[in-house]
């Protein structure tokens, strides 16, 4: 609705509104600029990793901000370094051919046919011309040296197979806690939740001894099998979601003669897809990060290690090649980052449910 346009003197009220508006705008600018500044500091390490991964080894150690090289020019079959030479008030970029103490001879890369140009002055005082060059070769080099396809393959294998196990078992358990009344349900659920704060170390030593006894150390089995028995985080999140699904549909299914398991698979699961997706995502990230377990069980078996363990060992061996380590780190973080950007909404909702409802 358009306000009626009438000619009248601005009142004190109008001025106050205008002042408030101005103040609001000013605050918006201030807060947003602060956020921008924070975000750039916050993301600086990522930029650093990206830039370093594209440097040569010398650059990564000497660390100019950007991967720059002193430019060289090929003149009559030999390479000469290019300098910024002040001539008559302008700066020319010339290649230095013959070095002399008080005067030197240059060639102009844009006009090499003009031949050598004599220049009076000390060449040592000149700034070398730099050009940005990205060492893309670091990526294939890191990829091969670390045997990335193998690490990636095992990580994906572990993430996928335990995702299936952990999510499906947790869904069953969550449904059991959400919908059925049985003795000690409250106590059992509390026990389950308490396992969140139980340090895994307490069970790790005898588990390790046992798995070593049955010959499972050095294989993925001790890491995969326990995942098929549900875990507290997943159960909690899924249970919260199941509780919001109205009962009527299950009752209708029961009237139609479907048993609880069939009802669960046919009625509940299709409705719980958002929650299942969130839990799957969390599990994927957990598996990608999982470190202590793979370390103790696979430290002796290089052929089966996941990224987390493989990269640690790589870091120990190649610590004089920071650019390769950054390239490897960058490859490692790209997959989770891309998944996050695409599945953000579900992801963020899931975190909020676990954190706030508890």
């Amino acid at each position, binding site marked *: 609705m358009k306000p009626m346009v009438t000619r009248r003197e601005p009142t004190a009220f109008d001025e106050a509104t205008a002042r408030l508006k101005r103040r609001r705008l000013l605050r918006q600018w201030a807060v947003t600029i602060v956020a921008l500044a924070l975000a750039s500091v916050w993301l600086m390490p990522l930029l650093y990793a990206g830039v370093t991964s594209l440097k040569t080894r010398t650059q990564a*150690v000497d660390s100019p901000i950007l991967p720059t090289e002193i430019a060289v020019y090929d003149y009559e079959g030999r390479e000469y370094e290019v300098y910024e030479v002040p001539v008559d008030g302008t700066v020319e970029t010339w290649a230095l051919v013959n070095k002399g103490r008080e005067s030197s001879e240059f060639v102009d890369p844009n006009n090499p046919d003009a031949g050598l140009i004599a220049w009076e002055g000390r060449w040592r005082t000149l700034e070398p011309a730099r050009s940005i060059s990205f060492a893309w070769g670091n990526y294939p080099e890191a990829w091969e040296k670390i045997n990335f396809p193998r690490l990636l393959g095992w990580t994906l294998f572990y993430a996928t197979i335990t995702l299936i196990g952990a999510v499906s078992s947790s869904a069953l358990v969550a449904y059991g*806690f959400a919908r059925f009344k049985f003795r000690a349900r409250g106590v059992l659920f509390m026990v389950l939740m308490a396992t*969140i704060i139980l340090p895994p170390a307490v069970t790790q030593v*005898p588990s390790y001894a046992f798995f070593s006894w049955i010959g499972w150390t050095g294989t993925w089995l001790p890491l995969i099998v326990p995942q098929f028995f549900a875990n507290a985080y997943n159960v909690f999140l899924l249970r919260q979601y199941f509780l919001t699904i109205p009962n009527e549909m299950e009752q209708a299914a029961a009237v139609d003669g479907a048993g609880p398991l069939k009802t669960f698979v046919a009625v509940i699961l299709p409705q719980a897809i958002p929650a299942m997706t969130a839990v799957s995502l969390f599990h994927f990230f957990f598996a990608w*990060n999982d470190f202590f377990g793979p370390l103790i069980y696979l430290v002796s078996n290089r052929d089966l290690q996941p990224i987390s363990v493989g*990269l640690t060992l790589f870091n120990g061996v190649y610590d004089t090649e920071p650019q390769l380590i950054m390239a490897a780190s960058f490859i490692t973080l790209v997959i989770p980052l891309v998944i996050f950007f695409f599945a953000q909404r579900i992801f963020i909702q899931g975190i909020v449910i676990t954190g706030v409802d508890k």
Partner: protein
Amino acid sequence: MAIVQEATDGATRKRFRRAKSELGPLERKNGRYGWIFISPWLIGFFLFYLLPMAASAFFSMLDFQLSVPDEATFIGADNWRRALFNDPNVWRSWVVTLRFAVINLPLGLAVAFGFALLLNSEYLRGKNLFRTLFYAPSVVPFIAATLIFSQVLNSQSGWVNRIIALFGVDAVGIDGIRWFDDPTLIPITFTFIGIWGVGNAILINLAGLQGVPSSLYESAAIDGAGWWRRMWNITIPMVSPVIFYNLVLGLVGLLQYFLQPFVLNGTTGYPEGATSFYMIYFYKQAFQFAQMGYGATLAWILFFVALAFTVVTFGTARYWVYYSGDSA
């Protein structure tokens, strides 16, 4: 807290059921299905929690070297005596771990709360974009984050020291700020790495802030309460359950701090034992030296320390955590 609520639910339900005295046949059948559905967890809990815990308690009374299992001998409380009284490494590693927790925990909570306040500000434009940007580092795998920080904070080539140098501080180089070589700086260095992944806490705090009823602020404004007053008397009490949740999980996580020091320094504790966290020492004893008995003892000590901290934290909750739903 759902955990607490569930407990009271269980209690009332039991009372209610006794009053009814008898379950209908349908309900009893229903209950049986409940057991079937939760059976994966029950079996797993027995196999991978209860049984190993019992075994672990037994192990802690053995001299048990994994390479020679036949020579395992029962030594009573010797492991415990050694860990509690005769092994200075245990105490040293606890000092390292707790000192780190004392620095990391409040900073982490404050940073997460601060970011959430910013993201919740009515004046911020592009909220979704900023939320994504602030969260993004949290999906960077820990190993990659650790390696990236080990270089960003490199005393010679890292950007952090270069930036500090812009302000006139002599930060770069051998005499500069040596984030990974100076034992007093180590807790701060690791705190930086940890705070980078504080995204979950930011989101949970943000959800908490969004859940504060605006009517509270309106009436406070009418009463003439300023920003600080509203912060102290409304915002913080209203999101205190969220802070509590982050505190408990953060504390339990920090007691088990392992990946970053291990990736950077293995079990060496460099510099001067400043990265000999408790879990590092546990790993060394249990899995490098394969001392199953002493390892199990160290694990149980971790358990009791974690339990003590959790109990104390929960005990203090009623003095500072506010639950609006509590009518009792």
